[in-house]
């Protein structure tokens, strides 16, 4: 048994399946045993089916003009109920603090006046948009959807790596991974209680509807996509489809009379809420980049008049600036009066001269990131970089210390992943998604687990060759007792229902009689014609 795990190496990182002694952790026992029962050929067959499912569904991305299925690994990632119950409130707390910070930044700026954050932090952020100043969203929500990236450090503790409150993507993979896994591994699902993720689209729609401008009774919600060539187009269409709303491109929208409309076969229709998957800079050529073809001129004006809600709000990028990240524990204490529930990763602010000197000395052992990047862009892992790269980096850090942060190399936790040599440890992170409807921050159970497929690789972004895993948050154990009869809803007694009709000619006994008669009278080989 468990051939696939043979030669599974122990590493410095926290392995989520095996503890330091090599024993299987209780949370994974079931999955481990179920995977161990499969032969390698069987498991690879299932992996192939998963990939084929994705190809059929169109869950693909482009590599040099060829469509490849988005890599989904056969081995799931398991989060226990207890672990999740500590993570989810921490995520919700962070979202609330980020909301409060954004409302403050684009409003009274109390935190700056009270000295919690320096004014330069806000004003020097590339994503702080003066065009958004003074726009008050109808129900006060700016972060309708967020993705908080978490990692597990060497001790197994969850830490926040970064916040994404602009247009966090990846939730479609959570939904489609679950669907595909349930079809390919039914036996894994049958004895575990795995919390469902299916209600995400309805939660999102409810949050978007709740954010509609005041006085609109039946708001029209649309999803704004950059178009079919966008790498996340699959996600945009999936969300629109599962919410039953229109998926629009910039050219489908027209702003007129201070309102936003869409062009339909029945004339113009008013749009009340835009769930946009287009970056701030491209949203409105009047307010931002004038060469943008992806947005619609006049959107910001309509938004300012309060006739349309843009979700997520414009200018949110100031809150997920990686330098703001370093202030977040203070911001949580300041706005919410609570201690942060989730730890952060130690971070050097390179603006501070002492920190910059220390970082420059230890560059070969640190991770350095641009503050406004996403998708792992521009990130340099010290131990993996060449001397020339480090030298070039040193220059850039000196030139623009505000633009960078540095963190120690955190060994992300590992989970077994099917690669050529069998199941091998690969580093993972976790992006839980939170939906804020104004009254309540709901965190989708689980979230997107991204896995770095090359050995030892710590960068998990799909643009850098990452894959994903289905993430299972376990509920309490499945009860095997039959419910008491009083509580059971009614079932029809046998015979009370209407039987399924069948053609009298298909009555088996009659057929047999006919055939017997035939056999008695005729030997089939004597027949001249073919039997049918």
């Amino acid at each position, binding site marked *: 048994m468990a051939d696939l795990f043979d030669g599974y190496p122990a590493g410095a990182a926290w392995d989520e399946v095996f503890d330091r002694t090599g024993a299987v952790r209780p949370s994974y026992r079931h999955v481990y045993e179920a995977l161990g029962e499969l032969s390698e050929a069987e498991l690879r067959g299932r992996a192939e089916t998963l990939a084929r499912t994705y190809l059929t569904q169109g869950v693909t991305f482009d590599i040099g003009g060829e469509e490849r299925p988005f890599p989904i690994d056969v081995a799931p990632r398991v989060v226990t109920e207890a672990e999740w119950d500590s993570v989810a409130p921490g995520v919700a707390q962070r979202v609330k603090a980020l909301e409060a910070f954004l409302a403050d930044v684009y409003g009274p700026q109390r935190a700056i006046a009270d000295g919690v954050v320096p004014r330069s932090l806000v004003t020097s952020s590339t994503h702080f948009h003066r065009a958004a100043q003074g726009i008050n969203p109808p129900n006060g929500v700016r972060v309708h959807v967020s993705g908080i990236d978490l990692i597990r450090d060497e001790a197994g503790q969850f830490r926040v790596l970064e916040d994404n409150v602009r247009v966090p993507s990846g939730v479609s993979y959570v939904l489609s991974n679950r669907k595909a896994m349930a*079809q390919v591994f039914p036996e894994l699902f*049958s004895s575990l209680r795995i919390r469902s993720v299916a209600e995400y689209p309805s939660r999102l*729609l409810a949050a978007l509807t709740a954010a509609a401008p005041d006085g609109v009774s039946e708001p029209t919600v649309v999803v704004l996509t950059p178009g079919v060539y966008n790498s996340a187009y699959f996600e945009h269409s999936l969300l629109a489809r599962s919410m039953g709303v229109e998926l629009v491109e910039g050219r489908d929208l027209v702003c007129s009379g201070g309102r936003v409309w869409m062009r339909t076969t029945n004339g113009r229709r008013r749009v009340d809420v835009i769930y946009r998957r287009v970056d701030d800079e491209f949203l409105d050529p009047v307010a931002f980049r004038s060469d943008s073809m992806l947005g619609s001129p006049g959107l910001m004006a309509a938004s300012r008049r309060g006739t349309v809600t843009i979700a997520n709000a414009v200018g949110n990028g100031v809150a997920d600036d990686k330098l703001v990240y370093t202030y977040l524990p203070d911001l949580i204490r300041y706005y919410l009066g609570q201690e942060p529930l989730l730890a952060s990763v130690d971070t050097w602010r390179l603006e501070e001269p002492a920190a910059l000197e220390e970082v420059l000395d230890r560059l070969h052992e640190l991770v350095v990131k641009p503050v406004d990047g996403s998708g792992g862009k521009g990130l340099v892992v010290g131990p993996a970089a060449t001397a020339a790269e480090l030298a070039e980096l040193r220059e850039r850090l000196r030139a623009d210390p505000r633009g960078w942060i540095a963190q120690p190399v955190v060994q992300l936790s590992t989970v077994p992943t099917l690669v050529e040599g069998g199941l091998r440890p690969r580093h993972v992170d976790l992006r839980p998604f939170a939906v804020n409807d104004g009254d309540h921050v709901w965190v989708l159970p689980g979230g997107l687990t991204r896995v770095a497929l090359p050995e030892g690789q710590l960068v998990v972004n799909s643009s850098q060759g990452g894959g994903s895993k289905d993430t299972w948050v376990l509920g309490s154990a499945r009860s095997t007792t039959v419910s008491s009869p009083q509580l059971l809803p*009614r079932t029809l007694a046998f015979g009370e*229902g*209407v039987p399924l009709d*069948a053609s009298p000619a298909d009555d088996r006994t009659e057929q047999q009689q006919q055939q017997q008669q035939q056999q008695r009278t005729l030997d089939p080989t004597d027949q001249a014609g073919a039997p049918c």
Partner: protein
Amino acid sequence: MLSRIAESLFWIGRYIERADATARLLDVHVQTILEDPWAEEDLVCRTLLSVMNREAPPEGTMVGRHFVLDQLAFDRSTPSAIAGSLTAARENSRRAREVISTELWEAVNGTWNQLPAHMIPSRPHSFFTWVRERAALVSGIVDQSISRDDTWNFLVLGRSIERADMTARLLATRALAGTTGPDWSTLLRSCGAHEAYLRRFRGLGSDETAADFLLTDRLFPRSVVHALWQAQACLDALDPAVGKASISGARRTLGHARTNLEYGALPDLIDQLPAEMLAVQRACSSASETIRQRYFPSGALTQWAGGVL
């Protein structure tokens, strides 16, 4: 057309549709049992059996999905299971071989030939997907290669009656199992209706609108009302002269069931959903019987009494 042939055509339509609808029904239910940790496997399985009018083991024994799959999917001996109804469809196609197109025959016969290769109990979903694809292939060929004469009308008449019946059964699973079974969106998905429904109601769905959609939507082809309407249209085409003067026979039965749903008050219908759905199923069954008497009368069996004369 020979009555015997017409009867075969009618049943090809019914059996193929039954295989399709049963596959959809089982697929969502099995998926729900697997995916939703709070679904009661025993209860969901019992509901399925009772709705399909199959005998369930006595109370107290757990009924698992394997039992249900054996009974309703893989049983080849009875036309009320998927494998059995595909087999029966093939037998009926053989009887009507000379009037149906070669393409249609090959689609039905090919399905039957491939059946054993696809019946893998550990991979029910791929079996159901395959059944749905084959059913779609057959009905596509029916619509494209058969003239709109009596051949087509009998095939579609069978298909429509079966569709109304199966959608009614599907609605009954929800009404009976209550909140423990799959929810409305799952049921809609099983009919391939979820996306059409979301578009019609712009995602602001409720249990009532979901029931309403599957019962009375005039545009969605799998709603009960649409299927009954289609069946009636086929009957009109088969017998145009009678229709003008009065309504009788199967048309009355089907029309009565349809108008009851169409013009009934929705809250009343939903309150009485199990009973209303049984009424639809009975109407389908009785219409089927009337059609048999009207179009496929089998001569009284001639009995030979030997030795008296």
